[in-house]
């Protein structure tokens, strides 16, 4: 019985028991985990929360940015001069190729036109800057300063001046998340330049890469260059990815253990290029599907035969 102004004291109103509350929230968290890991249903919710958090994140980035600028400002002039010298030498070295590239591309176009082949489309790219490494210590990702507003789409390949860096995996309005090729779950279809051997490259421990599923007697040597094979329809073919650093052939295992070092400055910060989406691959041949279900095919054939006379 409550009289106005004489409410019962709130000491004993404590809601559901702690264990019940714990059970409720644990179930909720586990549901979130499963939905995100298994079905990826939560991307929209993540986008919403990330949009709200964006200004806070930029503000939190400010001290790091300031520190970088200060060290850059007080960094010695000599370092800048050395870097300049290095770039000039590199430019001269690559000038030979660059000058002839235009000529070669024109020639290629003419030859392709002669052969009546589809001309290769030029690949547009977006320049972006790596802002910071994502906080998540379980994966290798970086955040770049270009996002959905700059027409970045999840799945685009990211390169730096020397090779493939990774792939855009999550796009926010003004930022996007790039998974580096050294991430354990990131796979890049590659081929050896020396002999055209095709394989898939996975991330391994400590910023290294591992070439998996190659037979123990496969023709791979330390120092071999790996380039993208382009079979995936995501990476342009022929981009340098990694160099083989060690090959362990153990007779006990049917596969060789091949470790590689990335060619690009994967764990460094700087400018990167987000390559435009590739032209879609030709559709898969449907013959294999037909072979899998012979009974259906035969029935259809019979029907056709029945219909013909």
């Amino acid at each position, binding site marked *: 019985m409550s009289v106005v102004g004489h409410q019962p004291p709130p000491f004993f109103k404590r809601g559901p028991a702690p264990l019940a*509350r*714990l059970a409720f929230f644990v179930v909720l968290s586990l549901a979130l*985990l499963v*939905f995100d890991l298994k079905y990826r249903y939560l991307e929209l919710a993540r986008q919403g929360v990330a949009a709200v958090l964006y200004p806070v994140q930029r503000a939190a980035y400010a001290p790091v940015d300031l520190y970088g600028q200060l060290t850059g400002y007080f960094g010695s002039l000599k370092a800048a001069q050395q870097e300049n010298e290095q770039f000039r030498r590199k430019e001269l070295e690559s000038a030979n190729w660059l000058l002839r590239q235009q000529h070669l591309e024109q020639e290629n176009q003419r030859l392709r036109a002669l052969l009546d082949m589809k001309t290769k489309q030029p690949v547009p790219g977006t320049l972006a800057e790596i802002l910071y490494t994502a*906080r998540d210590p*379980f*994966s290798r990702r970086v955040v770049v300063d270009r996002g959905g507003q700059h027409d970045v789409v999840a799945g685009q390949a990211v390169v730096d001046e020397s090779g493939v860096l990774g792939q855009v995996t999550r796009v926010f309005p003004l930022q996007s998340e790039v998974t580096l090729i050294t991430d354990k779950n990131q796979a890049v279809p590659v081929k050896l330049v020396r002999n055209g051997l095709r394989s898939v490259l996975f991330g391994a421990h400590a910023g290294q890469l591992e070439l998996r599923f190659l037979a123990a007697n496969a023709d791979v040597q330390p120092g071999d260059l790996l380039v993208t094979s382009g079979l995936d329809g995501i990476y342009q073919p022929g981009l340098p990815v990694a160099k083989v650093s060690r090959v362990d052939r153990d007779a006990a295992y049917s596969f060789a253990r091949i470790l590689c070092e990335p060619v690009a400055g994967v764990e460094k910060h700087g400018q990167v290029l987000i390559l435009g989406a590739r032209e879609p691959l030709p559709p898969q041949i449907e013959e294999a599907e037909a072979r899998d279900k012979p009974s259906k095919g035969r029935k259809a054939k019979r029907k056709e035969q029945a219909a013909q006379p």
Partner: protein
Amino acid sequence: MTIQPTHSSRRILLPVRQWFILFSLAVAFFLNLIPLGHAIGVPDWVALTLAFWCVREPLRIGMGTAFVFGVLMDVAAGSVMGQHSLAYLLLAYAAGGLSRRILWFPLVQQALHVLPLLLATQLVMVATRLAGGADFPGWGYFLGSFSGALLWFPLTFVLLLPQYQPVERDENRPI
């Protein structure tokens, strides 16, 4: 007005303000967002502050707040949804349950109580991610808990600052 730097439980503190709890959690969240890369030994500020308030004020703050800050942290860190929320949730439950016990001890022993809680929080995160097929981040990952436990003393001082009373007695005030 001087502030008396003692932390014994005999000391009578002013009641805490709800907005200050949320403000301190927001500041901790901001500190967590500062991108330090994968630097080793950086404490999880949100977990630490959450543990502090769950120990100090188990009736005012608990699993609901822990869950919300966990989801925010999941998005901000770019990790799997539910990873931080599950870990913070269990931390809040354990800290709330142990609060009556922990507050009897002096600060050093309080920190020793909090250390396993923080370690368990990190273990939960590692377990959820390894179950999801991620890479083990290395043992240095757990150093964050130790630095967090070391910070228990300064954290207690800073977060209780608004609740301290002046030492001088005032005849108009009984306590």
